[in-house]
């Protein structure tokens, strides 16, 4: 009985704090320095006094969400964990695009921003090669970079929750694949796909989730740790960013309608990027309960790259839980760190 009373009091306190917005968690707390920037691209290096492994690791973030999911809270931060494990971690982040970015294509990222950021990283870290990591749509960009730029010194490569077979991507992909909608149907007058459209699309994938999440929140409202994590994750999940219209047209035409990633050959400018040209050690990490990038969509990547050392890491979590949840802390992060460590040098 006393437990029940205490819980009700905690529930009331946290509920009031939630309603007044007082318990909004502080995200992206890991100290970092801005190394390089071009237009909306930002390269960050995380501070560390214990860098034990090389080469440095560059995480390329997705174009459809904000990067603080990788550094959500101190106890669930993917980036903080990797830094703590002795890796030299860089993050290539994209500030929310505005109309000036509406004409950004895949080539803008693959032939311009990412190679330039890699150059800046190598200069800053004094390294000759690096480990390239892509999360979600950032994984697609890293695949195109690795396949389209064999001259870049990529020693190892890892993609996390990265789509490949767009037939398996469900509702959002099917809306465009079968011609129900064209890219221009969702691009606004500024040339961007509005953040609201993406948010509504993700919400539609699991219509009951919003209610279930509210119920879970109420049930655990007494639990400070749960409330903090819940608020951080739900803040991120609704914090979508617009998508450049030109890149979205390419997504619809190349990735969704032609399913070019599954074919292994992606037209890029006047050339073709072939996944078979990726020959460095490769890890394809994906989540079995991922509702945004289903495992069936990510799976084929492992056999499509040309690496002799290509493996997959199948995790029992969802898209966000992959990098920020309890499952990530227990299983995903240690296994990811272990793979990078095994493909790095100490000292």
């Amino acid at each position: 009985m006393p437990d029940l009373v205490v819980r009700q009091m905690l529930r009331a306190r946290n509920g009031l704090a939630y309603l007044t917005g007082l318990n909004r968690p502080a995200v992206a707390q890991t100290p970092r320095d801005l190394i390089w920037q071009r237009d909306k691209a930002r390269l960050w290096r995380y501070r560390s006094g214990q860098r034990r492994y090389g080469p440095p690791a560059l995480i390329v973030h997705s174009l459809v969400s904000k990067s603080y999911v990788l550094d959500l809270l101190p106890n669930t931060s993917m980036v903080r964990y990797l830094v703590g494990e002795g890796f030299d971690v860089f993050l290539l982040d994209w500030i929310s695009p505005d109309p000036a970015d509406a004409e950004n294509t895949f080539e803008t990222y693959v032939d311009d921003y990412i190679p330039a950021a890699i150059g800046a990283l190598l200069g800053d870290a004094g390294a000759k090669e690096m480990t390239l990591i892509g999360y979600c749509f950032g994984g697609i960009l890293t695949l195109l970079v690795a396949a389209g730029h064999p001259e870049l010194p990529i020693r190892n490569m890892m993609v996390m929750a990265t789509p490949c077979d767009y037939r398996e991507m469900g509702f959002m992909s099917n809306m465009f694949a079968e011609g129900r909608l064209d890219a221009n149907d969702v691009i606004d007058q500024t040339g961007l796909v509005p953040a609201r459209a993406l948010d509504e699309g993700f919400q539609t994938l699991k219509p009951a989730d919003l209610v279930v999440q509210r119920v879970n929140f109420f049930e655990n409202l007494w639990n400070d740790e749960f409330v903090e994590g819940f608020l951080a994750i739900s803040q991120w999940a609704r914090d979508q960013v617009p998508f450049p219209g030109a890149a979205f047209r390419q997504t619809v035409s190349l990735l969704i309608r032609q399913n070019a990633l599954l074919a292994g050959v992606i037209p890029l400018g006047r050339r073709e990027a072939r996944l078979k040209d990726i020959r460095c050690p490769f890890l394809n990490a994906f989540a079995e309960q991922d509702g945004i990038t289903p495992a069936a969509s990510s799976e084929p990547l492992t056999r499509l790259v040309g690496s002799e050392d290509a493996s997959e890491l199948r995790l029992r979590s969802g898209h966000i839980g992959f990098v920020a949840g309890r499952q990530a802390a227990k299983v995903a992060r240690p296994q990811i760190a272990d793979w990078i460590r095994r493909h790095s040098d100490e000292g």
Partner: protein
Amino acid sequence: MTSLWRQAFDAIERPLAAAAESWVQSKTFMDLAAVTIRVQRRLTADGQRVTEQWLHAWGMPARGDLFTLMNQVASLERQMRDLERELQLRNSRPPVSHLGPPAPLPPAEA
């Protein structure tokens, strides 16, 4: 231990959620959603056109004018970016030494 109210909620929610998820993946739902998006877009555009005409009749700026301005500024910013890239590329190119020294200037007229 799971509370009774939660067990009751789960018992109702799980089959409903599963049904809702398969409904949104159905062709009927996707066709309906596509039509809704297209009609909504059409109606919004028509509404904006009428409002714009009315505002213009009174010599006032409309939302469309704002977008036109925004796109013009964006286009200027893109041109600036291209120029910046071109400049960086020129600065990073090695000097053209194989062409030999520049030709001497003609003697200045007295």
